[in-house]
């Protein structure tokens, strides 16, 4: 089931949802959900907005999100740009290097296939054809607030992927 975790700002019920989210991120990831960003040929406007998330006004770290340069440490992959053919291999390798559970967030109109509609020699026409995208954040570029909401939606998707650990022995059968 997919839930939109943050209602619109005019909704008076924003506060309890935000508290639940904070508790959810805290419980699942010990207040440390790590984000890896990959630019597949964007104009850098999306990167500028993503960078603003770490600035004092938005202060992403207060919610337990952090950026990491290593895909091995990342829980969430943020992809910008239309998916250029030159970056396709790097993008797939980054996704493969990330441990499960992981979510992919496509950021901006280019990544959503809104700008370059068709795949051609240069681009894949968005990243939706390259990776299984879980959350799409529209905008050109999306504002940091929109990115924040998208990240919170992604946490909901990540929460769905967590399975309780199961004790297993090779060759043993259930009683």
């Amino acid at each position: 089931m997919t839930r939109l975790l943050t209602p619109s700002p005019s909704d008076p019920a924003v506060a309890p949802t935000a508290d639940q989210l904070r508790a959810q991120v805290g419980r699942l990831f010990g207040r440390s959900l790590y984000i890896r960003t990959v630019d597949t040929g964007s104009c850098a406007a999306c990167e500028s907005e993503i960078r603003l998330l770490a600035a004092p006004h938005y202060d992403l770290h207060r919610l337990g999100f952090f950026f990491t340069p290593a895909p091995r440490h990342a829980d969430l992959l943020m992809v910008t740009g239309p998916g250029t053919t030159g970056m396709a291999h790097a993008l797939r390798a980054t996704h493969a290097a990330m441990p499960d559970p992981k979510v992919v967030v496509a950021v901006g109109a280019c990544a959503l296939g809104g700008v370059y509609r068709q795949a051609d020699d240069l681009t894949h026409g968005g990243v939706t054809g390259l990776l299984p995208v879980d959350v799409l954040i529209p905008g050109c570029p999306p504002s940091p607030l929109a990115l924040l909401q998208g990240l919170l939606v992604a946490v909901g998707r990540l929460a769905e992927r967590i399975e309780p650990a199961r004790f297993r022995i090779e060759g043993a059968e259930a009683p």
Partner: protein
Amino acid sequence: MARWFLRGLRRGVVTTRYPHRPDPEAARVPTPPAFDPARLTGALADQLVAVCPSGALERRGDTLVLDVGACTACQRCLPVAGAAGRPSGVFECAATDRDRLRVAIPIRGQHR
């Protein structure tokens, strides 16, 4: 100077309280358009499709399809739409499905 900065100096905190509380600065973020179906005529819909530089608007029979995923919130359609259009004010558009970003607006306006 940004209002949030002055407010921060007064309170000693510059950080937004979003998503705990709505951010007042969100009202200044460019947002995709919203069209009034009662004032949207077929001719106007065709004009809107022609003026949209990013191809986010598409006419499908009696509906105008707005693709929020392709919309860059440039707002060039708003002067053309006049009273039939306004900025939607919705910036929380993140979706888990590409099709959820497409909105079909029925064309109910009468030709004069």
